[in-house]
């Protein structure tokens, strides 16, 4: 049973990494919205790059999630 407890704690600890991704996505979208407000004509280009940036930032959180899922359901 102790191993089970350690697994649950470990999965929780692995998800701490989502903090950085959350802050990163917030910064990306904040910057993009400011840019769109200043230059509405460039919205299309900014949106494309924004989605790319979000995808890169979010990938870090997804790695944490995959590690947590592996700890919970595989090992």
């Amino acid at each position, binding site marked *: 049973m102790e191993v089970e407890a350690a697994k649950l704690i470990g999965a929780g600890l692995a998800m701490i990494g989502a903090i950085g991704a959350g802050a990163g996505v917030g910064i990306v979208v904040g910057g993009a919205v400011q840019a769109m407000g200043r230059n509405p004509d460039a919205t299309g*280009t900014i949106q*494309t790059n924004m*989605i790319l940036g979000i*995808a890169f930032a979010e*990938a870090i959180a*997804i*790695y944490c*999630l995959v590690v947590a*899922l592996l700890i919970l*359901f595989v090992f």
Partner: protein
Amino acid sequence: MSEKPKKRVWARWVVLAAIILGLFLFTGFFGIGLGIAPIMPHVYLPGEKLSETPILGIEGFYPTNTLVGLGLANLIVILLAVGVSSGVKSGKMVLTGISGAVEALLEMLYGITEGTAGKWTKQIFPWFATITLLVLAANWSGLVPGNETIGLIHEYKNGHPLIQAGPLTTIWEGGAGVDVESYDGKKYAVVPFLRPVSTDLNFTFALAVVAVVMIQVFGFRSQGMAYMTKFWNTKTLFSKPIFGVIDFGVGILELISEFSKILSFAFRLFGNMFAGAVLLFVIGSLVPVFAQAMFYLLEFFVGLIQAIVFGMLTMVFMAQATQGHGEHHEEEAHA
């Protein structure tokens, strides 16, 4: 447009009936209702084997439920292609229905490609569109009811008891109407017939390998052997004493980053879609009736965004590979 709401009036009664049925099944207030407690299904990371005999006798090549999901996704894409081609052949100036929706999607994707890839648009766009359509079909096929819930029951040590509820055999944690006598003490779990293929790491990894290999192919097609200097940069090694060594190290790092692209592609799609499936199960087991609808909507958007992100990253990396090393440096100098 003005006639459509009249035709769909019956739909609201169907929704109302579904809500009342759900409340009757899953809640047990005041003695009415069955009070079934929805269970948390067992979560299994790799695709489950549907049969223990490998396909064609090849070792380790089992028919899994994600393989069935891949077949479904491919079938959707093929039916889409047939539908669109018949829509185009009908000779209408403005495409309507499903072919119109596909036209709008492809037009958007083509616009993005044109803005990034320039003169390589015609070569790169098919890869972008193919990956996006296949991943989109795979992601959205997971939202079809019956997916991941209907399947074969087998014994499983962390499962739930098997209950005979009228004519239906189901796995049931317990509730108001449980017949305790029929409980034989064994525990069971369901192996679904169908699971969306993007929740299988094998599929996302294979797609990522295809994407990254094709990125290198585009690099070689546009620059020839000069593309190798991106990874093995000995041009400035002797002319500039210190910075040459740094440039050489950067080339090695570029080589490593190509391999990390594969991992990044594979885990991004797999993590998003698998976590989405688990999220739907968890919410369904916590709040049986209303809450899952909101998360269905969320999963709808996540499926679309992840499909576009996978395709768009492939497209952007391909466009970068077609641009030469020298141009890249100039861009950095300007920035």
